[in-house]
């Protein structure tokens, strides 16, 4: 099985999602991963990225977010690192408490699905950075 890694840096802008998606797709295609796996990874990473840029920074400044993807021993590990305030995107809930009940139920949907689709998700705060690691065991369906 081929090994490989990719590192990219994006800024905390919604438009960066396209770049992120394209680079991720290209990397996965290079590894001959099935469309389903590529889709699931894109889904999870978008969810996390959007949470980080939506709720992870309390200023209006531009921030850089570093994403590293590594393929080792049948596992794809994605590491998403940012320098924002302490923020765990896995625990983010819709902050809008004025949101009506039926919409709020859907607020946690993306994270619920992400946790279901990925093998492992882990957050830690290290060296003034938020570090989010997502793992997908490629042998799982």
């Amino acid at each position, binding site marked *: 099985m081929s090994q490989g890694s990719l590192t990219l840096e994006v800024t905390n802008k*919604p*438009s960066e*999602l*396209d770049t992120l*998606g394209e680079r991720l797709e290209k990397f996965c295609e290079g590894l001959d991963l099935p*469309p*389903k796996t590529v*889709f*699931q990874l*894109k*889904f999870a990473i*978008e*969810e996390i990225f*959007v949470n980080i840029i939506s709720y992870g920074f309390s200023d209006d400044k531009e921030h850089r977010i570093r994403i590293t993807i590594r393929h080792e021993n049948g596992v794809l590990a994605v590491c998403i690192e940012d320098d924002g305030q302490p923020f765990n995107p896995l625990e983010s809930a819709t902050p809008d408490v004025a949101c009506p009940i*039926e*919409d709020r139920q*859907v607020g946690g*949907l*993306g994270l*619920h*699905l992400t946790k*279901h*689709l990925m093998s492992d998700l882990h957050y830690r705060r290290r060296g003034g950075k938020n570090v989010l690691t997502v793992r997908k065991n490629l042998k799982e369906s």
Partner: protein
Amino acid sequence: MEITETKKDGIHIFKLSGNLDSNTSPEFEQKVLKAIQDGSNRLVVDFEHVDYISSAGLRVLNLASKKLKRNNGKIVLCSVADYIKEVFEIAGFYLFLPIVGSLEDALATV
């Protein structure tokens, strides 16, 4: 993402092409809500050329479904890729958002 709208026999058909993500979902939401506001009660969304959907896209469909339900309306999806269908299933959306095979099936069901 490209969105094409057509009407046939009182059914409002949306054909999507590309990625339904956080950036492209708002436009789709706007169009769907407008269709409902303008009186469309039977909606079909053709996923044949949809490569990707994120939770943002799911939210739009959930919202559309809820709004239509209030008016005894209906929304049906068709030609959904298996790996996307799986996400709808995990989310429990199949309970209120029917997914059928072809566009013909959708037009017959809605």
